[in-house]
C-alpha cells in the first residue's frame, strides 16, 4: 500500500516538492517558534546593560578575526565547566548578541567570563604575540590591531541598526556613538564623561592599549574582552556556583 502511494508521488515533480517541503518544515517550526513564545527561555535581568559603541566595535573585530573559531563563549551546565570558568551561561547574557558567539570549538579556553580576569596590559601583550606571555600557546599574533586606527564614524549606523532590531539604544546613544567610542578609550578627555552618563558609572573608561592619544582596534577589542560576562550579574544569582558577583570596575 505505501509503495503504491509512493509510486504515484514519485511520478509528480510538484507532488514531490510539496511533500519534501512539508516533511522538512515541521522540525524547525516546532523547535524555533516556541523559543519566542515561552517566556522562561530568556531569563529576567533588570541590571543588563548594552554594549557601549567601543565594545560593540570590539565585538565586530572579534567576529572579523574569527576568534569564535577557537573560543567558545558558553559555559555549559557541567560541573567541570562551572568549576573552571564560573557560573554556567544564561540565555539572557547574549540577549543583545547578533549574532551569538557561543562557538563550537575550544582550541583556546572559554571566554564567557574572561572580563576582568586579566589586565588590559596583559591582553595587549597577549594579542600582540600570545607566545610572549603564554609560551605554549598556538593562538595567532594580532600585531596589526594596535597599528590600525579604529573606524569610528560608522558607529552611529551600527547602533541605529541594532536599535531597529530591538536593542534599547536611545537616540542620544546613537547620535553620540562615535564620540562615546572615542571617550571610552581616552580617559583624560571631555568625551570620557559622556560614556559614563549614558552607559552607567561602572563602564570601564581606560586607555586600553596603553596609548591615550589614538583609538585603535586594539582598544576596542580589549574593551570588549573586558566586558565579557559583566553585562549582568544574573548568572551569579540563584546558582550553586561559589564565586561572588563580578564587579564591572575590576
Amino acid at each position, binding site marked *: 500500500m505505501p509503495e503504491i502511494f509512493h509510486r504515484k508521488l514519485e511520478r509528480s515533480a510538484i507532488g514531490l516538492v510539496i511533500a519534501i517541503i512539508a516533511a522538512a518544515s515541521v522540525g524547525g517550526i516546532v523547535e524555533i517558534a516556541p523559543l519566542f513564545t515561552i517566556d522562561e527561555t530568556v531569563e529576567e535581568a533588570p541590571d543588563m546593560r548594552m554594549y557601549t559603541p567601543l565594545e560593540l566595535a570590539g565585538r565586530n573585530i572579534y567576529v572579523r578575526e574569527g576568534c569564535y573559531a577557537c573560543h567558545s563563549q558558553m559555559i555549559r551546565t557541567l560541573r567541570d565547566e562551572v*568549576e573552571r570558568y564560573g557560573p554556567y551561561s544564561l540565555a539572557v547574557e547574549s540577549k543583545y548578541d547578533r549574532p551569538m558567539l557561543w562557538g563550537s570549538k575550544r582550541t583556546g579556553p572559554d571566554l564567557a567570563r574572561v572580563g576582568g580576569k586579566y589586565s588590559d596590559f596583559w591582553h595587549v601583550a597577549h594579542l600582540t604575540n600570545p607566545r610572549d*606571555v603564554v609560551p605554549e600557546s598556538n593562538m595567532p599574533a594580532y600585531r596589526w590591531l594596535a597599528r590600525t586606527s579604529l573606524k569610528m564614524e560608522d558607529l552611529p549606523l551600527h547602533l541605529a541598526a541594532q536599535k531597529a532590531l530591538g536593542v534599547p539604544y536611545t537616540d542620544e546613544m546613537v547620535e553620540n556613538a562615535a564620540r562615546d567610542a572615542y571617550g571610552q578609550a581616552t580617559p583624560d578627555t571631555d568625551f570620557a564623561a559622556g560614556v559614563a552618563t549614558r552607559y552607567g558609572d561602572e563602564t570601564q573608561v581606560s586607555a586600553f592599549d596603553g596609548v591615550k592619544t589614538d583609538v585603535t582596534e586594539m582598544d576596542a577589542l580589549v574593551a570588549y574582552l573586558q566586558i565579557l560576562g559583566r553585562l549582568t550579574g544574573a548568572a551569579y544569582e540563584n*546558582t550553586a556556583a561559589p*564565586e561572588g558577583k563580578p564587579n564591572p570596575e575590576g
Partner: protein
Amino acid sequence: MEVNERDPVSGRETTGHEWNGIKELDTPVPRGVLLFLIVTHLWAIAWWFLVPAWPLGTTYTRGLLGVDQRQTVEARVVDGQRERAAWMARLEKEPYDAIQADEALMQTVRNTGRQLFGDNCAACHGRDGKGRANYPDLTDDDWLWGGGPQLIEQTMRVGINTRHPESRVGQMPAFGRDEVLDRDQVRSVAAYVYSLSHPDYSTADNLKRIEAGREVFLTTCAACHGEDGKGNRDVGAPNLTDTHWIYGSDLDTIIASVHGGRQGHMPTWDERLTTAEIRTIALYVHDLGTQQP
C-alpha cells in the same frame, strides 16, 4: 502491468523501471531495519516522557523525572563542594602554619593548586611560576610585597594597582617622561643601579657616571628603594641589588624603567575565586620555593 525482470544474482524481481541502465530490486525492507526503527522510536518516546521534551505554546512538558540541566549541574557542584569539604574547610579556616605542618594536607594543596594556578595565574606568571618579562618570578623568594602565605593571600585578594579599595599600590614614577630628571641624570642613575647587580661594570671608565648616579639615587630613589637599594615592602619597591628582575636587568631596560616608570597591574581574585581557593593558591605559590614565613 509490466513484467518485472528477475536479477540473476539475488534472484529478486526488479521494480520494472530503468533509468539509463539503472534498475532497482523490489527487495522488501529487511526486518532488522524495521526492528531498529521501532526500538529507537520506543526509546525516544520513553525519553520524552521522562525529561523536558515537547513545547506547548507558552510552556513545555517537564517530564516525569522532574529534571532540568540547571538543577542537575547545581546539585553536582554542591556534591563537589561536599566531596572537597573536609580539606577545603581546613584550608579555609586553619592558620597557615597548622596547614603547613600537615604534610598530607600540603600534598592536597600541591595537587589542587597546580590546576588553579595554571588556569588563573599562569597566563602572567607562567605555568612554573617563574614569571617572564613584565611579570615577576614567584619562585625566587624575592618579594615586592612579602612571600609569607598570609601576604600572598593579601596580594591576591586586593591585587596590585587595581580599583580595589585596599589595592596594593606600587607606583614607580616616570622620572624621565615627567621631566623630574633630565636625560643625563636618567642615564647616570640607571648606570648606578646597573652597577649594583653587575659589580664588574664598575670599571674606571664608568666610575664617574656611576658616582653621579649614586647622588641622584640617594636624593630621588632611596625614598622607595632604600639607601642601599634593597627595596621596601611598604611601597612594593623591588630590591635593585640582586639578580631578580621583573622588567629586565640590562641597562636599556633599566633606563626604560626609570624614564617611563612602571605600574604593574596584578588583578584581584577576591570575587573570582573562593577563600579556600585563594588560600590554596597562596600556599601553593609559597611552596614553589619560598622560605619566608
